[in-house]
């Protein structure tokens, strides 16, 4: 049996299955991070003292990571646009750069984490570090998940381009929506944790 609307848009919503699915998933992701941001606010307003983020955290490294993630969002858009224009080689180039940007982000995060651990700063040290590691750790897992999906689409998953290019292009667009959400979350994590 053929599953309807895998590529074509449903007449009532104007969307295909994948697009609806990814947006419902992103909505659940907003609530997941929203719950943790609310926890941050609750911990902060309930604390007698709250350290400035820069007391513990490295602002220049986090600024670098902000630039890296923003850049990766642009290359993700360029990868999708290349497919729409039928330029598979350019798609692979731009998606490859996106994956490398994700890797660079994780390397910087590793440097940050290892420095904290070297100075014996752990989630159990205080409430600020507990919420810092929770929020950035969960965000880091999302970066890894996005890289896994993008790597699949860059490698074995790209075989679909030959058999069903429109469906493949939609998959890349949906992977891009997830990647942009990861960028969006970091845009708020950066000032909230590092600068305020």
């Amino acid at each position: 049996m053929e599953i309807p609307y895998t590529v074509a848009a449903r007449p009532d919503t104007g969307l295909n299955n994948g697009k609806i699915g990814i947006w419902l998933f992103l909505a659940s992701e907003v609530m997941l991070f929203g719950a943790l941001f609310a926890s941050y606010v609750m911990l902060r307003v309930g604390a007698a003292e709250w350290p400035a983020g820069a007391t513990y955290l490295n602002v220049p490294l986090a600024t670098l990571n902000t630039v890296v993630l923003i850049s990766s969002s642009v290359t993700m858009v360029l990868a999708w646009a290349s497919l729409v224009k039928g330029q598979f080689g350019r798609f692979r180039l731009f998606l490859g750069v996106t994956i490398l940007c994700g890797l660079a982000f994780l390397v910087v995060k590793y440097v940050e984490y290892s420095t904290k651990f070297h100075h014996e700063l752990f989630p159990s040290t205080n409430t600020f570090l507990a919420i810092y590691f929770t929020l950035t750790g969960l965000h880091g897992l999302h970066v890894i998940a996005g890289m896994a999906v993008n790597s699949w689409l860059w490698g074995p998953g790209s075989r679909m381009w030959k058999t069903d290019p429109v469906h493949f292009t939609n998959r890349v667009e949906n992977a891009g929506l997830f990647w942009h959400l990861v960028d969006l979350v970091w845009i708020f994590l950066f000032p909230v944790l590092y600068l305020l």
Partner: protein
Amino acid sequence: MSEAHAPEAASHDHAEVDRHVRAALVVFGSLLVLTAFTVTAWSLHLPRRSAITLALLIAVVKGSLVAAFFMHLISEKRFIYWVLALTAALFFPLLLFPMLTAPGAVLH
């Protein structure tokens, strides 16, 4: 059921995609400038209330640019707007409730 409607990706013509790419590059530049503003504002050591307001304001502008242009929300289907409206209706009370129940505790 038949798939009578045109595939979504096929409906993007090249000129439309080129416009989308140009907009994305402008947004990219804007995001870099706004990131520089955020860090500059932080380095000025403003009073805490002003620093929080300014940093969050810039973050909201940056987030809106990403959502509008990178995630295509500036020209998306109505169904998705309804999904996001429902999400916002749940998200903002969740976020604001702790602040409203402890007035003044964070902004002094």
